[in-house]
């Protein structure tokens, strides 16, 4: 990325070509912006989009995605930040341009690590899903064609031949409905999330997807493309980072997402090992409670479990010495003797604390990381029980933890709608006997902290759910505390040009 101070390049495309550039209000972000923009605009676009994505995140863990309330709040926010909020408005060139450019700027900030990419992809997908669902049928067809995802609809004859299989593969479908419903023949690569859970018929490498599920196909494609693009952008990062003006801004942007940093050891040493059993029942989220129980029962945890649980314990304040003692005392009750423990396992615990290997001080896993990466297999206890357990097993587990039948039904309903964090919040409410959590859950350590706060009486219980404004406050307060690392707008020459933004997004 280069700055030119001398010459201001042709900024805007000529009026008559504007329409060509953004034929749809919804975008797939395939082409990076080719125009030059000023550093001031760069910054304000980026911050606005970050605000928007923070809202998307908070709404997603506070309301049922796709519900009326969720949609209304999101629309308000889009309107307020001057992104296009309705699909049909014709003359919204500026909004479309802002959408386009701001998306690409955040790519630069959020390609830098696995965690950042995961966060960014998740929020962009939620935003995209909302906007796609707002399209009319006709616009959907047009849009699919525009992004080259128009699939062949199966003929009446084929549909009749496959009717039984289609009915048995597509939940909630009756024989009558099948006649009016359009089915598309989609290669299995494009329908991963549908065939994974057997929601579609799969035959000879093709899935048969009902019109109503096409949003999943588009999202799948969106995620694949975005994730590849971010990986490519990451490669050109050294060039971006060497730019002394952009680098602090991008760093600031990328640090704004996490909320509290649970790797900061403000609690260190405040926990004693003897209390963990009691805490695991009172204040651990279900994922950690499950890990703790498995460890006590089996005197062992596999690697995925040791990472997830070990880092969580570190986050709630276990020191390295305590951790070594804790794990060792449990493991030697099982098949591992003290010597084998010191040789085989102590390393990975010191590693968690940054004392071995690359010496990275590892951060406790967020909900998103647990939900999206490294699913557990046979004999594993890590992962998110709301995401990774079979609903029937989850039910059994909740019953054994004495959750009321109505509570269990509510949780399972949320799980069914894939609202895993909301399900976990419901679990919090039920186990703490409150009507409202009063926070948007996105981290197991946050769960723990909130629980402790509540149990020690340090929190006003009947608080209203957090408003989206919170996120902005957080952002702006962070901005002021971090102001040394951010280019203050007064330092920026307003007409400084950024040239060749597209250079960082070239195809492989």
């Amino acid at each position, binding site marked *: 990325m280069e700055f030119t101070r001398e010459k201001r390049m042709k900024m805007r495309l000529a009026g008559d070509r504007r329409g060509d550039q953004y034929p749809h209000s919804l975008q797939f972000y395939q082409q990076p912006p080719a125009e030059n923009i000023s550093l001031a605009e760069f910054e304000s676009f980026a911050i606005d989009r970050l605000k928007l994505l923070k809202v998307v995140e908070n709404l997603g863990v506070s309301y049922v995605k796709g519900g009326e309330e969720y949609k209304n709040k999101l629309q308000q926010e889009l309107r307020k930040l001057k992104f296009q909020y309705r699909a049909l408005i014709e003359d919204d060139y500026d909004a479309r341009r802002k959408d386009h450019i701001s998306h690409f700027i955040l790519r630069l900030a959020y390609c830098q690590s696995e965690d950042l990419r995961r966060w960014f992809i998740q929020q962009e997908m939620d935003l995209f899903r909302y906007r796609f669902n707002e399209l009319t049928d006709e616009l959907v067809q047009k849009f699919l064609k525009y992004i080259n995802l128009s699939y062949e609809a199966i003929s009446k004859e084929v549909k009749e031949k496959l009717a039984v299989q289609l009915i048995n593969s597509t*939940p909630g*479908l009756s024989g009558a409905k099948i006649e009016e419903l359009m089915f598309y023949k989609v290669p299995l690569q494009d329908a991963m999330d549908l065939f994974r859970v057997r929601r579609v018929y799969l035959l000879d490498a093709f899935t048969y997807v009902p019109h109503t599920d096409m949003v999943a196909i588009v999202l799948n494609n969106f995620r694949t493309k975005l994730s590849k693009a971010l990986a490519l952008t990451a490669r050109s990062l050294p060039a971006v980072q060497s730019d002394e003006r952009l680098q602090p801004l991008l760093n600031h942007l990328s640090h704004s997402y996490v909320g509290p940093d649970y790797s900061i050891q403000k609690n260190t040493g405040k926990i004693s090992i003897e209390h963990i059993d009691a805490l695991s029942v009172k204040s651990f989220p279900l994922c950690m409670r499950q890990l703790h129980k498995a460890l006590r029962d089996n005197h062992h945890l596999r690697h995925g479990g040791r990472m997830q649980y070990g880092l969580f314990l570190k986050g709630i304040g276990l020191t390295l010495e305590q951790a070594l003692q804790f794990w060792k005392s449990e493991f030697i009750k099982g098949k591992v003797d003290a010597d084998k423990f010191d040789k085989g396992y102590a390393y990975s615990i010191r590693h968690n604390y940054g004392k071995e290997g690359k010496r990275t001080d590892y951060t406790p896993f967020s909900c998103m990381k647990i939900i999206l990466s490294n699913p557990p297999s046979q004999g594993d*206890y890590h992962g998110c029980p709301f995401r990774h*357990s079979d609903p029937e*097993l989850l039910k059994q587990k909740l019953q054994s933890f004495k959750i009321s039948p109505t509570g269990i039904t509510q949780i399972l309903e949320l799980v069914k709608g894939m609202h895993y964090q909301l399900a976990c919040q419901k679990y919090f409410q039920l186990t703490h006997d409150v009507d409202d959590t009063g926070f948007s859950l996105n981290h197991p350590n946050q769960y723990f902290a909130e629980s402790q706060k509540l149990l020690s009486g340090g929190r006003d219980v009947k608080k209203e759910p957090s408003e989206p404004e919170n996120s902005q406050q957080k952002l702006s307060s962070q901005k002021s505390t971090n102001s040394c690392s951010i280019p203050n707008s007064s330092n920026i020459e307003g007409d400084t040009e950024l040239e060749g933004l597209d250079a960082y997004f070239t195809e492989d």
Partner: protein
Amino acid sequence: MAGFEPSSLPDLLPLYYRRLFPYGPYGRWLSYGGVVKNYFQRREFSFTLRDDIYVRYQSFASPQELEKEMQKMNPYKIDVGAVYSHRPSQHNTVHMGAFQAQEKELVFDIDMTDYDDVRRCCSSAEICPKCWTLMTIAIRVIDRALVEDFGVKHRLWVYSGRRGVHCWVCDDSVRKWSSNLRSATVEYLTLVKGGPDTVKKVNLTDPIHPFISKSLSLVEPYFREYALVGQDILGCRESWEKVVALVPEHILLLFTLLQEFPKKQDSVQRWELLRNKMDKHRVRNSPGRWLGSEIMLQYCFPRLDINVSRGLNHLLKSPFSVHPKTGRVSVPIDLQKLDHFDPFAVPTISYLCSELDTANEEEDGEKENEMEPMAKRRTRDYKKTSLAPYVRVFEQFVDEMDRSRKGELLKRSDLQRDF
């Protein structure tokens, strides 16, 4: 069959790698017709040497180089990994992050230890002809789905040499699959869920997906012989209580199974009793409607290790590698004769070497082969042993891939001519 002593490996391996390992078809397999540039060269191999010394990221300029190295190092075990962006042997010289696994066969690992809660005959690494049926069922179920549902052509099923089977799916398109797609596939193929503390591991709900009904129709023919007669899962109180534990409480009350089971003679009769009761009380959409199928699946349905299949860079024991504990060669399984495959008939390295000795003694008497080139002699060497039929299965698999590759090329050039 000659007994195998792990301590004899250092003596036997050199002979095995010099005279018996099927380098020809093996090299042909992993070169994939030489269509993609440096495909073989970018493949990771890893050797396990004596005393568990593990050497990763080995790669070779050609199958001949691999052969030379195998004969030099005589590895206890050989694993095959992914095809990387760069030669694995040079992975240290490549900028970090740039060295990435690009392609690999889709692999499945089915291990008998994962069935310990439903086997009464053996546990952990042990197997016997009774529980081997579980592997037969697993292959039938997974292979059908791969062919019919996933449209896959080239599968190599291999006995691991000890307690399980591996599958290598080798189609060109499948080797390019992302790890997300691989884990989606494993999830599609998984019905048994939950760890050791989960009682009921299979839960079916309406509608029953065609994958499940087709799998059931493959499991059912084995169920009586295998589970009721062989494993005798309703044979005594202790084991039928495990089955009864799978019946939801609200129907259990109606069934009075625990009172009636002791009056019946054997597992077959008790299963009939259970089925009759279920038919009588079957309620639409109630949990328990599919109880009979759920029990069958819990006892018989394949259990896959998702970690092995998901990661592109995950290593898997190579076909024709010797299992260092049992001495048995990891051999391909002929699906045409799947029900007759006997893991205990798979030759051990010591048996093969003794066969070779006998054959050579006979030939020495004739004294006519001395001038023959080494390579030619070796092709014939394994033919003198009981490894021969397994190598033939392997060759057929590689030939079939060659044929369809040529078919593809022909089709493409025909198309070009048309234009």
